[in-house]
């Protein structure tokens, strides 16, 4: 059987950054397996700008951001296979993949980096009642058609979900000649960036209706109209608040789900909150030598942080392959508490952590003038004020090894949001 030091599943932003990092940390035998016909992943269809401010200090479009990493991958001569679908990974890291040229093949990997990204939630997952006509698209499907194929999937559009993809598609469809009638959002706040609300909706006079959802889809063959209704505190539609919009298209931007079928298949433990693997300080899953990064681990809002996280995963996988022996040490649980939905990582072993470890998390509601607090057991060691926090914006806290070393006996690190 073919062998490989590090096999990376996915050639999107996470996979590319992980591969580059692994190579730069001394591993030559790296292989990227990508299912699409080009590297770059979903960035290829995200032709809007706003990527890379953090990484490159300039504003790039999705394809431009991807091209920087693709160029580096080529420069480092990192091998990759395109249009190659990974069918299965075993717990002992045998990767079974398939493509047109080689058929089915297997690779015994020393380490695996999971970087498969995520998929969109579909209409079915929301139980939206009504007919099932043509014209109901996930925002990403529409994005692909418009941005990569040059086709308009509809002329009169209602969008459900005000996450960034929904907002971006409102602008894209408008610019290409469609009429976007309204964007409805189930929550009382938008999950998208303020900038996107202003520049994708306000600029074009597209109304945003908060606390609204779709209660009916009309049209047997093609969408003919959508009924929206206001929802109560329990997200249940309020009778009498229905509004009908005639349209031929419903775009859904209702959430992303990490794509972990392969991970589950190999026995990786999955968090019910993030739908991504449970990882330690090295972004390593419960299976030794299997790492995860990017949207397969937890859904990010900025690609810059995907790249940063993937870089760490690549470095850690390289260290694993080079047998830089992991030290034994106490495993500290990282516990999300009041207001914090989850943390990545879930455990920390201080002896194995880098000098500075980024813990990423999301809050469960909108907070203004609240504090991010971190407790080492019962002692509050971090208390940082934030003007605003929202579920749509990932938060991070840097933990210092030096500081943690002064608490040799702690059992848990707790993250919570406090009003004061």
């Amino acid at each position, binding site marked *: 059987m073919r062998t490989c030091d590090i096999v990376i599943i996915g050639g999107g932003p996470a996979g590319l950054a992980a591969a580059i990092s692994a190579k730069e940390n001394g591993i030559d035998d790296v292989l990227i397996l990508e*299912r699409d016909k080009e590297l770059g992943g979903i960035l290829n269809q995200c032709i809007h700008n706003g990527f890379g401010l953090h990484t490159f200090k300039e504003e790039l479009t999705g394809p431009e951001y991807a091209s920087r990493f693709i160029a580096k991958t080529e420069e480092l001569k990192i091998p990759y296979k395109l249009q190659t679908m990974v069918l299965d990974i075993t717990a002992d890291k045998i990767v079974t993949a398939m493509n047109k040229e080689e*058929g089915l093949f297997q690779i015994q990997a020393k380490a695996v980096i999971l970087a498969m990204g995520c998929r969109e939630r*579909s209409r*079915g997952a929301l139980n939206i*009642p009504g007919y099932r006509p*043509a014209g109901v698209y996930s925002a990403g499907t529409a994005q692909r058609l418009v941005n990569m194929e040059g*086709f308009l999937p509809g002329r009169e559009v209602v969008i459900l979900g005000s996450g960034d993809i929904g907002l971006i598609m409102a602008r894209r469809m408008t610019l290409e000649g469609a009429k976007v009638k309204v964007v409805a959002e189930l929550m009382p706040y938008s999950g998208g960036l303020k900038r996107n609300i202003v520049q994708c909706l306000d600029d074009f006079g597209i109304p945003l209706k908060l606390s609204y959802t779709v209660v009916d889809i009309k049209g047997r063959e093609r969408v003919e109209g959508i009924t929206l209704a206001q929802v109560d505190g329990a997200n249940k539609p309020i009778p009498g608040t229905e509004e009908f919009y005639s349209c031929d298209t419903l775009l859904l931007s209702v959430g992303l789900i990490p794509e972990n079928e392969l991970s589950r298949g190999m026995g990786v433990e999955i968090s019910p909150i993030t739908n991504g693997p449970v990882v330690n300080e090295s972004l390593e899953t419960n299976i030794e030598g299997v790492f995860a990064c990017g949207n397969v681990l937890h859904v990010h809002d900025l690609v810059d942080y995907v790249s940063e996280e993937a870089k760490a995963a690549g470095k850690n996988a390289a260290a694993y392959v080079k047998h830089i022996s992991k030290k034994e040490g106490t495993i500290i649980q990282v516990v999300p508490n009041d207001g914090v939905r989850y943390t990545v990582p879930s455990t920390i072993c201080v002896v194995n952590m880098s000098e500075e470890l980024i813990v990423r998390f999301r809050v469960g509601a909108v907070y203004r003038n609240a504090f991010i607090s971190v407790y080492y057991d019962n002692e509050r060691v971090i208390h940082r004020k934030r003007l605003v926090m929202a579920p749509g914006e990932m938060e991070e806290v840097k933990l210092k090894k030096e500081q943690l070393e002064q608490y040799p006996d702690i059992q848990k690190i707790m993250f919570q949001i406090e009003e004061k």
Partner: protein
Amino acid sequence: MRDYEIIIIGAGVSGTAIARELSKYSVKCCVLEKEEDVCCGTSKANSAIIHAGYDASNGSMMARMNVEGNAMMEALAKDLDIPFKRNGSLVLCFREEDMPGLLRLYDNGVANGVPKLQILNKDEVKKIEPNVSDDVYAALYAPTAGIVCPFHLNIALAENACENGVEFKFNTKVEGIQKLEKGFIVKTNQGEFTTDYVINAAGVYADEIHNMVSEKKIHITPRRGEYLLLDKTAGNHVSNTIFTLPTKYGKGVLVTPTIHGNLLVGPTALDIVDKEGTCTSAAGLDEVMTKAGISVKNLPMGQVITSFAGLRAHEENHEFILGEVEDVTGFIDCAGIESPGLSGCPAIGKYIADLMKGKMGLEAKKDFISTRKGILNPAKLSIEERNKLIQEQPAYGNMICRCEMITEGEIIDAVNRPLGAKSLDGVKRRTRAGMGRCQGGFCSPRVMEIIAREQDMNITEVTKSGGESGLIVGVNKENLA
């Protein structure tokens, strides 16, 4: 000279089962279907189960067709290369006072000729099905009940009939039937066809077709049933099909694995007027979720991947109407085919074909091809076989639907085979591409490309399900002044 000897109206599972049985004989037969494909009405949206046959009243056609159809299904599935599994069914009851009802069902089943029926006590039920409700008191166990893919069954019947010479006309809606001295003129939106005999297998429209020629009117009520389909990750939650015994408090919904490994719950039952009213409702979906929870515990309702509604063709007497219409010689009804219609279809096909044989003195063909090869499923091949296939046909190495793992090779086959897929839904029903957890979010544009390429048409002409269900309305900027 007539255009045809027999015209069958409707390419659902009944019409195509009849067509396939008739294709064993030398007879000029044509199936007219108003939709663009087979399996577009009741046949495509139902519980996908093959009932054992204890439910229908003893002595009814329903009971007979059900029990006979169930017995025939295994050999038929083998001949047609479609998946079928006898997974067994359980009818649960929750209280001691419901036992007489359960026993009545048992007795009726025995009288109907259903083999191997058993009454199980709570412990026995929990042993074979640990996830049923802890409140279960007893159950009627029918090991011969099964699950099938209704699309594959319907499509396979049609393909085999087609291969044996039956003609199919799609997008052909019957608008009137004129009785001649002998035979009929069938008037459609695609012109007129003359025929000696008409077989009415028009599902929820069977009353309209029947009433075009007969003075003895029938009435079919579309009875809507809503369903929820769960991800394959939930497919092992139960292994038998779980029913609840209808009581004075109402009728439950079933919870069943599907032949493809998903979990299906439903249906509701609501009589409506609109024969195209296949929309789901918030109330209906809520009802399904609530009722499913009564029979099976810890259902992972967060794993729902889609919901749908189907219409049963409910006839007032709740009985299959099979046979020549009293006042119209040569006009044969196959009407009121609601549950257990899918289970009964092999027997219905044979029953009607036998009837026609007797009437017309049909002769068996010597060259009837009884088997049909389904679309190759590469996942069932060994690595060596699969590699050989990919080497010969590289399209089998190109994965298109990630969720259901469907390759380009399978989709090309689905489009190009006889009565092939013309639309996204056609491909979906034949290959399962787009039927998985992302519901076509990823693969739809790619499948559209393949359909367009193989059918040599522009991608903008590709539809979801024929008619006005176009997917792309134009190109970027074209309507910017």
